[in-house]
């Protein structure tokens, strides 16, 4: 246990010189959405980890947290935005034995995508029905 804890202390980099990091401080518009945007925060193991998402906010954070919490293999899931002036969102996942946080996170994405497909399908159907009924 203590050895694990010792690893969690991380040296902190100095703040960048002014001007050096303008591209990031400008907000979402300068982060290429196809870049590598997920990072595992220090102190992670297979059943407990925190992920840092770049250029994401409550929109995805809360939706994903809900989908992950719907997984019975998950012990805990929560999200936070550590500082409002950094476009970053952290998700904490702890699972029971027998699965890994990576599988759980991936299932979260899959479930959310499946949900989106169902919503699109039902919405289109209901709209077309409604429009057809309004016509005559």
């Amino acid at each position, binding site marked *: 246990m203590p050895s694990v804890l010792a690893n969690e202390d991380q040296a902190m980099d100095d703040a960048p010189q002014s*001007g050096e990091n*303008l*591209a990031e401080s*400008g*907000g*979402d*518009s*300068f982060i290429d*959405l*196809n*870049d*590598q*945007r*997920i*990072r*595992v925060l220090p102190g992670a193991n297979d059943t407990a980890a925190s*992920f840092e*998402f770049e250029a*994401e*906010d*409550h*929109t*995805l954070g*809360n*939706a994903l*947290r*809900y*989908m992950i*919490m*719907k*997984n*019975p293999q*998950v012990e805990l899931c929560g999200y936070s935005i550590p500082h409002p002036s950094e476009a970053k969102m952290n998700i904490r996942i702890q699972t029971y034995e027998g699965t890994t946080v*990576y599988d759980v*996170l*991936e299932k979260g*994405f*899959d*479930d*959310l*995508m*499946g*949900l*989106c*497909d*169902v*919503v*699109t399908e*039902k*919405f*289109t*159907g*209901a*709209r077309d*029905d*409604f*429009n057809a009924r*309004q016509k005559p």
Partner: protein
Amino acid sequence: MAPVSVSPEEARRRKIVGVNAETVTHVSSTDFPGHYPGEDHAWSLEKFAKDFTVQFHQNSPYESTFSLFPLDASIANAFRRILIAEIPTLAIEYVFIHNNTSIIQDEVLAARLGLVPLTGRLEGLNWMQFYKRPVSDEHDASGGGETERDTAADNNTVVLKLQKECSWAPGQPKEGETDPNVLYINSNVYAKDIEFIPTGRQFKEFPSPDGLIRPVNPDILLAKMRPGQTIDLEMHCVKGIGADHAKFSPVATASYRLLPTIDILKPIVGQEARKFARCFPKGVIGLEQEGEEGEVRAVVRDTMRDTVSRECLRHEEFKDKVKLGRVRDHFIFGVESTGQFESDLLFLESVKILKMKCVRLKRSLANVTR
């Protein structure tokens, strides 16, 4: 162990948010595995696909209302937030002022122009790409940002022009005439005076007359002028998102509310029933005759119209006879478009964007060093 099943009454009780005179109760969702011992609340796409319902109430081009249920607040809120801040639209971003002798200052006029909602052929708007801006003005001056910058092209920039000069109306005005519309020509500059200058493929993507890039509302007053004053400027429109600037937001409002519930616990009859009905908007509470010559009785007709003003709870006689609430997983969405896209398409776009987020991040997750 087979999952414990829940009675319909219990299931309904669980999803009602209580609304009291001064407080609310049972606000949080409880449909998570492990919350109720022995019950199965794991995510199931089949179950969701079976239960999920969309019900339209109104669907005019620029205003839609519809119900989504059952859906969790976190998902509904994601759709709402994407509608407001993440759907790309076209708006005026750069204004090059050649001449402006009107009394409205250059920067104020430019800000006003930016907020004018534009429209054009849908396929053309979807064909438009993002224009990559310089990283910052500072970088740009030193040449550092130049490599990052796109050049304006037909698929990322739309050029508009506004040229207007005010003059005296011909002929001698009547003695004491004060109406500016009679005295002057072009004293008002409207959004309809904005002229679209297509280039390259834009001729095909935004064909005349219906496909042209134009203001949605032609009668927006942009500036006022007097004889001798001139406005001559060129505008470059680019795609952007509402998170960057509200002018890029495709919706005037995108909001939801929860379906209200009204449970009458003890019968409310006679004069009281009439008074009770007056506590709610029209059509929410109906009056029913009991038998041939019985008294009238208050019945719940249409809770959708209720505003949950809680007026009935202010009256002593109704306090123990009624319970107000809202259904936690029934969302009544209202989407009002600014006119660039139709409301129902905007909602579908928001669902697509949420899915795209997942697709991209799932790919990103595969590359995470474990």
